[in-house]
């Protein structure tokens, strides 16, 4: 019969409309259903729409999420070297960066004039950065990581979109807090929670001590 196709389609739309509110009914018609309801509302059981009311609620980004790199520095309460850069200014991130948005000034020892494994300055133009994450992937020292803070809107493009070293630096603790399992895997590969160089020095010490 002509028109049955349309009505069958309408029936599906109607079902869908009802299903959207099933979860709300289950959790008691609150404007914002409680936090515990979120995984089921956004998960495999949901039959209706997936709308999330940003910014009243946000989907926390997964651990591997990438948005603008940051530099890992030692925790500020680290016993030996608080706030020390993990970066050794080897320049691999700057070389692998596809849009070439990383500028590094390699540190030099003021006495000998020889390069030292520490960046003098580190700039990232976040307007150019394409969030590909290659810098973090190829960094041999786990010193540059992709951040999770995606709310970076600002009023002035020219003034504050080139991040310098101070703006980029974040404690190692921060990386552990946003990506705990990833950080743990990396620590396992390094052989400890500390920076590679620290671990190496420690191993050397232990060897010469014994």
């Amino acid at each position, binding site marked *: 019969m002509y028109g049955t*196709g*349309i009505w*069958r*389609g309408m029936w*599906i*739309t109607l079902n*869908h409309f009802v299903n959207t509110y099933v979860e709300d009914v289950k959790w008691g018609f609150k404007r914002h259903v409680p*936090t515990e309801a*979120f*995984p089921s509302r956004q*998960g*495999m059981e949901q039959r209706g729409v*997936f709308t*999330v009311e940003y910014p*009243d*609620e*946000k*989907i*926390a*980004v*997964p*651990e*591997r*999420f*990438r948005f603008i790199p940051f530099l890992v520095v030692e925790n500020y309460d680290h016993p030996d070297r608080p706030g020390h850069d993990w970066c050794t*200014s080897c*320049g*691999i991130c*700057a*070389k*692998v*960066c*596809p849009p*070439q948005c*990383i*500028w*590094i*000034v*390699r540190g030099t020892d003021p006495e000998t004039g020889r*390069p030292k494994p520490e960046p003098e300055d580190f700039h990232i*133009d976040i*307007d*150019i950065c*394409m*969030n*590909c994450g*290659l810098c973090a*992937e*190829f960094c*041999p020292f786990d010193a540059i990581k*992709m951040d*999770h*803070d995606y*709310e970076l809107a600002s009023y002035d493009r*020219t003034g504050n979109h080139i991040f310098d070293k101070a703006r980029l630096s974040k404690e190692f603790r921060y990386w552990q*807090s*946003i*990506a*705990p*399992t990833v950080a743990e895997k990396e620590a396992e590969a390094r052989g400890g929670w500390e920076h590679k160089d620290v671990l190496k020095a420690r191993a050397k010490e232990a060897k010469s001590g014994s």
Partner: protein
Amino acid sequence: MSEQAPVVEHASPTDDALSHLEARFGDAIRRDEREGYDGLLVDPARLLDVARAVRDDLGYDYLSSATAVDYLDKGDHLEMVYHAYRTAGGPPLVFKAQTPRENAVLPSLCPVWPGADFQEREAWDLMGIRFEGHPNLKRILLWEGFAGHPLRKDWKEPYFEQENKPFDSRWPDGQVWRAEEHNPYGRNVQYPPGFTLEGYQPPAEEWFEEPIPGDMDVQRDLNSDRLIVSMGPQHPSTHGVFRMMVKLNGETIERLEPVMGYLHRNHEKIGERNTFIQNMPFTDRLDYLTSLSNNFGYAMGVEKLMALGARYSPPTRRAEAIRVLMAELTRLVSHFWSVGFLMNDLGAFFTPMMFAVEERELVLDFFEATTGSRMMCNYLRFGGVANDLPERLRSEASLINDRVRDFNTMEYLWEMIFERLPRAVDQFDEYLTTNEIVTNRCIGVGTLTREDAIAYSAAGPVLRASGVPYDVRRAEPYSIYPELEFDVAVRYHGDVYDRYLVRLDEMRQSLRILQQVYNILKATEGEPFFSGRGGMYSPRIPAGESYGRVENPKGELGYYVISDGGQNPWRYHVRAPSFINLTALERMCLGHKVADVVAILGSIDILLGEVDR
């Protein structure tokens, strides 16, 4: 539905072609003997005849790709490279024609393969090869006020810094600057000699000047007038910034020409400045709905080159399984998007669309947790993938109002592949396939015959809806597709409705593949996802050429990559399916009403990131 005939192994296509054609063409053809190269070098004077022989006598009826290469300082010639395939399947026959860089002229292959039309216009536009006998040779992606041909190796862009990345200014003493403050060429916008902006008229708009026959056309009892309309570029039905110049008789299309290039960024020039690995995230941005299968094609292209070298280990089985998983999920997502958008174009504004992209949400959540990004995934590497599947799709709250979720990855995948996605496809089918409005608008509209589809180099669902069971996954199998069980979706009417049905069929086939891949993933859990050494940001790529192609949701996506043994590709060309599918647009639209053009364009499923590149 039909099972494609199994591919018969032949001798190398080049040998085969040489033995057949040598007697007839003698010195006009010879083998390309450069290291790492394959194929025939054809004398330009006989190119048209050779092409005809290749199509008619050897049966290579499908011209997949036609592109130009500039060999500056490596022989100083321009070279046109053609990849021709048999629609029955099998490897390509590559043939090339060379022409000097000054006054580059080659015969056009449009008389043999009309599908060469846009590709030759592109070669003229970007590389400056003039094609004799081309019906409409003018710039396609750039405008007439553009000086020079940008893909030539001696052409430099306004913000030019250095020939190849990585730039020396970045390390070790990076003096940061913003590009617009520091432009070494100054205001270097140039115009071609004799070009003035005053009175400039885009060639597409010259149509307006053309005399329109004043006489009325009488269609039954309707008096109709002729009219020229510029559809787009700012129009929701064009899926982006795309424009069609149409000449109407009443409401009937008499002539149509696509106008594009609004999103052009010279992807290929950027690609040649980049190192090999740096191109990977750029491929995401071609067809931004299918970034993972874009990655796939590029990775395959470069891996083929790496295989020419001594030390090369192919991707591991788990890597291949993950790649196929990602590619097929991408196909589902893209087809959902495209059938949803088709409904939009038919006037069912956004309800079916939203319904279609809903499941996409879950797939993208999975992509985000695995690759780090929802759309710009940048996930494949040469020799595997960047990362294994995570154990759990979990997150940590870091911003205010963050809501946390935590799923087991394999359970999530199982639910998605065996429960949700099949249900969604079935529901979508029930929702729209028999809908009378859909059938009335789609059946018999935009027909493309089998012969035309092949001749116009149409690819993907457009080709398969016209009755050609040609799917790269079967025709020239790659990855683990040979061991997977699936049918090539094919329909025979070649109209909008069949393209819609082919997409639905393909979604079901993708689900079949995914269900098999799920088991392979289960079986290979814990195995390496990357072959070779990790942490190689600049792998050595041996000199040579390669053409990596995959069956993208939009059609055959090919990457023609040439390495000269250095860090950067010498040539990086993308055979963009939606760009080439547009060649047949006029053919499909002629004689239909103007409202149908929107539906036909929707059924081709173009994506402007890929069309304009």
